[in-house]
């Protein structure tokens, strides 16, 4: 008997154990989604009764798309999803540019007071949004806006009031800063020697090699914005501009229609899943990279 087969057996057990553990974890994370989708197909009474057994996870019994039809009847779901997609997409895209450029400035450029400003930016982490919500409300309510209807004072009841205050993110700046700081300085120096401008270095050197951090920042910001609740609740009184999370409350009446709730949640989860699945490789790379670098 050589040592090699023993090591192989150990290896096999290790692999089997790992896969078993990972499968259990996967089930734990997948089960809520399965429950949500399966429940969205059941009538309320059956849905509630099935929660007492494993039937809750199985598409059995009186299965139909009735809850989806009822959900569309109850609330303007298309409007809510459009608003959230628009607000989230614009905030993420513009935010990536603004925050990465700010981080580029902190990580690569040399200017007086840089570290102090960076400290102040990082210090804003500790202030919860709830603490600044009311002052922010008063500020946006007194700001001018030039739109199709002319000059108006106050940003309430609009999409831009849900976008502009969230374009700059201290967390994103910090995330980009950490990544940019660890990039090889030789790349930047070489570009400088070649005569590249500061913007060209950012655009042609830094951005192309920072895909993972852009993906991570995009996903995290997307989730933040997609789940926005308190701010739109405060600044949007018109149904026309409501996002999906406020829209969810349309389904919580005196007698809650759980099937419709699940149908609505299934619908609004789709954009998040699409984004995550399309960026997951870069996301995992970024997380892994950050983890290795500590």
């Amino acid at each position, binding site marked *: 008997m050589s040592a090699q087969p023993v090591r192989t057996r150990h290896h096999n057990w290790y692999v089997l154990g790992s896969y078993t553990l990972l499968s259990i974890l996967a089930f734990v994370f997948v089960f809520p989604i399965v429950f949500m989708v399966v429940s969205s197909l059941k009538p*309320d009474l059956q849905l509630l009764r099935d929660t007492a057994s494993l039937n809750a996870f199985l598409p059995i019994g009186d299965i139909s798309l009735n809850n989806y039809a009822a959900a569309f009847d*109850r609330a303007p779901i298309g409007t809510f999803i459009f608003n959230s997609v628009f607000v989230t997409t614009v905030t993420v895209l513009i935010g990536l540019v603004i925050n990465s450029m700010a981080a580029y400035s902190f990580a690569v450029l040399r200017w007086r007071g840089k570290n102090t400003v960076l400290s102040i930016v990082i210090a804003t982490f500790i202030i919860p949004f709830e603490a600044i919500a009311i002052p922010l409300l*008063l500020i946006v*309510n007194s700001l001018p806006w030039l739109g199709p209807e002319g000059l108006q004072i106050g940003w309430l009841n609009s999409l831009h009031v849900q976008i502009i205050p969230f374009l700059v993110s201290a967390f994103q700046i910090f995330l980009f800063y950490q990544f940019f700081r660890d990039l090889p300085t030789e790349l930047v120096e070489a570009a400088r020697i070649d005569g590249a401008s500061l913007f060209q270095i950012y655009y042609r050197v830094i951005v192309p090699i920072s895909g993972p951090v852009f993906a991570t920042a995009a996903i995290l910001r997307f989730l933040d914005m997609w789940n926005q609740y308190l701010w739109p609740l405060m600044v949007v*009184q018109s*149904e026309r501009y409501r996002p999906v999370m406020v829209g969810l409350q349309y389904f*919580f009446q005196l*007698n809650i229609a*759980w099937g419709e709730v699940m149908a609505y949640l299934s619908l609004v989860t789709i954009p998040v899943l699409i984004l995550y699945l399309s960026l997951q490789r870069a996301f995992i790379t970024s997380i892994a990279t950050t983890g290795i670098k500590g």
Partner: protein
Amino acid sequence: MQNKIRFVFAVLAVMLVLVGGISAQEPTTLSMWYHGAGNEVERGILLGIIEDFNASQSDWVISLEEFPQISYNESVTAAAVAGNLPDIIDVDGPVMPGWAWAGYLAPLSLPDGTLDNFLPGSIGVWNEQVYSVGLWDAAVAIFARRSVLEANSIRIPSLEEPWTGEEFDAALVTLQGTGEFEYAFDPGMAWTGEWYPYAFSPLLQSFGGDLIDRTTYLTAENVLNGEAAVAWGEWWQSLFARGLAPLTQDSADRDTGFIDGRYAIQWNGNWAALGALEAFGDDLLFLPAPDFGGGSTIGAASWQFGVSAASEHQDGANAFIAFALQDEYLAAFSNGIGLIPATSTAAAMTENYAPGGPLEVFYELSLQQAVLRPPTPGYANIALAFEKAAADIANGADVQDSLDEAVDTIDADIEANGGYGFGG
């Protein structure tokens, strides 16, 4: 000459058109906020009232904006901070004094006698002035099955002769002892928030306690933590300690537990009555709250209409509210969403609350037994303090300590807010 005459007539005609245009002013738009977003039936009825009102006169046009009920209060508060309140505000009864005190609402100005026939719980009074009025009220009752009570030789109580506290307790013990039910009593522990003060504080009042001293509205001392309140707390705690009621419960259990026969009797509201009736038909009973010595009482006050203090058109807002209070609309809301119409004449027009109707008893409960949650701006804080105390007690905390803590919280809030306008 003829041309001149034609010219003069043409000029006169143009002037008449212009004058007519000036005198026929555009109606003023009144904004109205409502908590019923997502409820198609409610929305349909309200839009019908608005349509009728808009067509009935030429001075005002109502523009409706709907909000989800769960976050409605937060939306109104934020709008008040931003100075963006509408002309007509929908307000939950117990919240009204807070909004009136904060200056969000103006007193109503309705024609004399408008509210003469209204249920007391549907009229929102603060500082001796009417600030809001509802088209309906809600009531809770004990849901039970005649066959179950009779099989266990338990007396069926009536409005005139409700169960005494001892009778009620003994009935629970008997029902638990049959072994047929997981729990004898479902008080509704799955529902948190306003359900606690709305549904459970009447039991405290029946013991002789209350949420606040209603003679002054300045303290809860000796009322929420006095002997009577402690007696309530000990009984309340014993419900769970003796296994007569479920301490924890999910929403599914709350919705189906009684219908599926896991709970023998249930403390629930008229909004759940039709579902239970479907399941049990004539076997279902709606019974009054037990009388623990201080009377058989239930909570009152639901959603009501008020006028914004910031409205520049309060006369128009009042005109709309007066218009909406017609019996036909009260009955339409009741038939549509199952709530108790605010007048007896409207009740007579409904399917469920008319004399002989399946839910008639709820109207009588509202009329005879309703006690308003304390009409004070401090109510929001009182409700939170009571909810915490009741939950802590149910979970086994010391009764006296829990109630003392609630009293301290309530009194400190009242003091911090200068008495909320009470006490001079």
